[in-house]
C-alpha cells in the first residue's frame, strides 16, 4: 500500500530526520535540489490534463509542465525533474516530510492548508470549481436533483467537505463512496457503484473525454465551490517559495507580452524593459537575488511555452479535453489571471 508506506516513511523522516536549519538569504531547498541534480515534483497519480503518462511513457500535463519550467529555470534542463505520484491523501505528508520539493498536484488553496498545515501557496495556476458528472441516462440535469444519490468522492480533499456542506445547505441526503484517487473513482462510477462522481470540474472534463463513450456522460452545469488550484511548498523556506512563485508569474507575464516558445528568441531588440528583465537579455541580473541564473526565466518559458500554450496543450483544444479558458484567461483578455510586475 503506497499510502501506508508514505505515512510510515514520513513519520520516520519526522522522527529521525536531520535537523535542517532554514535560514534567510539563500534557499536550503534550492541547494538540496542543485546538489541532487534534479527536482522532486509531487504530482497526481493520474489526472488527465494535469498529470498523466503518455503512450511513450513520458509525463505530461498542466502540472507536469509547470514543474518542467521550474526545473528549466534552475538547471536549464526541463527534463531534470523526477515526478512523484501522490494520492490526495498523502500529498501534504509527503511535502512536509521533504519527499518532494514542490507539490503541483491540482491542490486547492485554503486558509487551513495555508496556516494549520504550514504550507506556502505560490499562487493560482488554475481557477477551478467543484462539479458533478452523471450518466446521461440517469435523467438528471441539475445537482439539485441529486437528493438521495450515491456519490463517488476522493478522500482527503476539499471537495469532500464542499460536498457535505452543499447537500446540507440544500436539505438533501447522499451516500458517500470514498475512493483513493481519480482512477478508482472513475472505475466505481462506470461500474454504477455510484450515481455521480464529484471533483474539480477541470478533472471531470479531463476524465470524461477519456471515457469510452464521452457522449453518454454529462458534467452538470452547477459549480458548487471555489477551487483555486496552485503549486505549493512547505513553510520555512521563503526563498524557495519566491523561486516557484516567480516562475509561475513569468509564464503568465510571457502570455501577456506575447512571448511564446517559438518566438522567444526574437525579443532581443524590444524596447520593453520588463521583457529584457524577464528573459535576462538586459544589463540587470535581478534573478541573482534568488540564486537563479540570469536566463532562468528564458529557459522556463522555452521549456513548454507560456501559460497560454501550456493550457492549450494540456487542457484546451489541442489536448482534446476542450476546456474553455473562461476566468483562466489573462486579465488583458477578460480573465482574472494577473501577475504582479516583474521588476
Amino acid at each position, binding site marked *: *500500500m503506497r*499510502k501506508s508506506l508514505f*505515512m510510515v516513511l*514520513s*513519520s520516520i523522516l*519526522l*522522527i*529521525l*530526520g536531520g*535537523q*535542517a*536549519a*532554514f535560514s534567510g538569504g539563500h534557499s536550503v531547498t534550492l541547494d538540496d535540489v542543485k546538489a541532487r541534480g534534479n527536482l522532486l515534483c509531487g504530482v497526481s497519480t493520474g489526472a488527465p490534463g494535469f498529470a498523466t503518462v503518455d503512450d511513450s511513457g513520458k509525463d505530461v500535463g498542466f502540472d507536469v509542465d509547470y514543474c518542467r519550467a521550474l526545473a528549466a529555470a534552475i538547471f536549464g534542463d526541463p527534463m531534470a525533474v523526477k515526478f512523484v505520484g501522490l494520492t*490526495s*491523501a498523502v500529498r*501534504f*505528508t509527503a511535502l*512536509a516530510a521533504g519527499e518532494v520539493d514542490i507539490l503541483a498536484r491540482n491542490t486547492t488553496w485554503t486558509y*487551513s*492548508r495555508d496556516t*494549520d*498545515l*504550514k504550507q506556502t501557496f505560490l499562487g493560482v495556476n488554475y481557477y477551478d470549481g467543484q462539479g458533478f458528472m452523471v450518466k446521461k441516462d*440517469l435523467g438528471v440535469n441539475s445537482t439539485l436533483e*441529486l*437528493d*438521495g*444519490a*450515491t456519490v463517488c468522492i476522493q*478522500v*482527503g480533499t476539499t471537495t*469532500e*467537505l464542499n*460536498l*457535505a*456542506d452543499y447537500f*446540507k445547505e440544500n436539505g438533501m441526503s*447522499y*451516500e*458517500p*463512496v*470514498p*475512493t*483513493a484517487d481519480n482512477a478508482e473513482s472513475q472505475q*466505481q462510477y462506470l*461500474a*454504477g*457503484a*455510484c*450515481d455521480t462522481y464529484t471533483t474539480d470540474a477541470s478533472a471531470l472534463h479531463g476524465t470524461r473525454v477519456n471515457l469510452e463513450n464521452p457522449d453518454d456522460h454529462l458534467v452538470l452545469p452547477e459549480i458548487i465551490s471555489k477551487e483555486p488550484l496552485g503549486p505549493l511548498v*512547505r*513553510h*520555512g523556506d521563503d526563498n524557495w517559495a519566491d523561486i516557484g512563485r516567480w516562475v509561475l508569474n513569468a509564464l503568465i507575464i510571457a502570455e501577456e507580452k506575447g512571448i511564446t516558445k517559438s518566438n522567444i528568441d526574437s525579443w532581443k531588440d524590444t524596447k520593453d524593459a520588463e521583457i529584457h528583465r524577464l528573459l535576462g537579455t538586459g544589463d540587470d541580473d535581478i534573478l541573482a537575488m534568488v540564486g537563479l541564473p540570469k536566463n532562468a526565466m528564458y529557459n522556463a518559458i522555452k521549456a513548454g511555452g507560456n501559460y497560454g500554450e501550456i493550457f492549450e496543450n494540456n487542457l484546451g483544444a489541442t489536448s482534446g479535453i476542450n476546456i474553455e479558458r473562461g476566468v483562466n484567461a489573462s486579465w488583458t483578455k477578460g480573465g482574472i489571471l494577473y501577475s504582479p510586475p516583474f521588476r
Partner: protein
Amino acid sequence: MKASAPPKSESFKLSMLLSDTRYRGTSLQVITFIIFVAVFFWLVDNTIKNLALLGKDVSFNFLFLRAGYDINQRLIPYTSDSTHGRAAFVGILNTLLVALVGCLFATILGLFVGILRLSKNWLVAKLMSIYIEGFRNVPVLLWIVMIFALLTEFTPAPKAFKGADPQATMLLFDSIAITNRGTYFPAPIFGEGSFWLLLSFILSVIIVIFIRKNANKQKKETGKSFPTFWISVLIIILPTLGFYFLLGKPISLEYPYLKGFNFKDGIHLRNSFLALTLALALYTSAFIAEIVRAGILAISKGQSEAAASLGLRPNKIMNLIILPQALRIIVPPLISNYLNLTKNSSLAIAVGYMDVRGTLGGITLNQTGRELESMLLLMGFYLCVSLLISSVINYYNRSFQIVVR
C-alpha cells in the same frame, strides 16, 4: 545476594563490575537500560525539535473540532457537524464490527475446513487442500480487492430493478435486494409489546440451557443420554410464537424498497463491508483450518482407536474425545490469527470502508494535517484492542487446560 555481597574492602575495584561474574549481569543490564532511555529521549527530543522547525506543535485539540465530512456506515449517530473525535469513534466501531464478524466466520469456517481436510473421502480432502492453499498463499489485499470487484461489477445497479419489466428482481418474496452498492435486507421493527416477546424468548433459552445442563449431568451419572434437541426446539419456538400472536405481532419487518436513486429502509450491508469481512474471514479461515488440523493430528491415534473399540461412532469420537483435547493445542495459535484479522482490517481503505484507519488515520489526518497525533492514536487503539483480545482468549484458554495438581 547477601551471601555473595563482597565485604567493603580494598579488594573491590571498579573494573570488577564487568569482569566479576557476581556483578557483570547487573551492570550490563544497567548499561543497556541507560542506553535505551537515552535513545528514547533522543528520538522524542529530535521529533519535537523537527516538528518545531516545521512550525508544528503536538496537540490533540483537533479531536474536538468540527469534522465537516460524512461517513456512509455509521453505527452511532454522526453528521458532518460532529467532531473529529466522534468520527474516530465511528471508525473504531466499524473496525470492531469487521473484526467481530470476521473472527466469527473465520472460526466456524476454519473448524469445518480443518476437519474436512482430514476426511477419508479423497475428493473432499483434496478440495479442502485447494481451498486452504488458495487462500493462504495469496495476499489478503488481493482477495479484498478481488471480492469487491466481483461484488460491484457483476451485480445489478439499483436502476435495474426499476420499471414494469425490470432486468433484476429481488430475492425471497421481494425482501432481499442484491445490488452493486450492497445488499439490502428487511430490518426488524420493534413495536409495542416487543419487550415482553423478547423476555419470553430469553426465558425459553434459559430454560433450555438448564434442561441441557441437567441432561448432561444425568448422562455423566447414569451413562444414559437424554435426547434434548427436539425438546429444546419446541420450548424455544412454541411460547415465542404464542406470545407473538397474543401480543398482536409486535415485531414486524421493514422491507427495503426502491426510491429515487437507491433502495430505502431495511438493513444495508455495503459492498465494502461485505468484501472486507468476507475476504478477511476466508483468508484467516485457511490459517485456522491448518491449526485445527494440526491440533487434531497431535492427538495420538490410540485415543481414537480406543474410542472406536468402545463402539463410539466417528462423529462422537470427534466431538467427545478428539476435539476437547485438540482445543488445548488449537486455542493459543488461534489468538494470533484473531489479532492478525483485526489488524488486517486496516486494509479497509482499499475498498473505501470507513474503519478507524479511514476516518482518523485517513480523512481526519488529511484535513487537519495532524499526522503524528493521528498515527499515535491509531497505534494506541490497535495495541489496546490486540491486548484486550489476547487477554480474553487467554482467560478462556486457561479455563480448559489440564489442571496441574
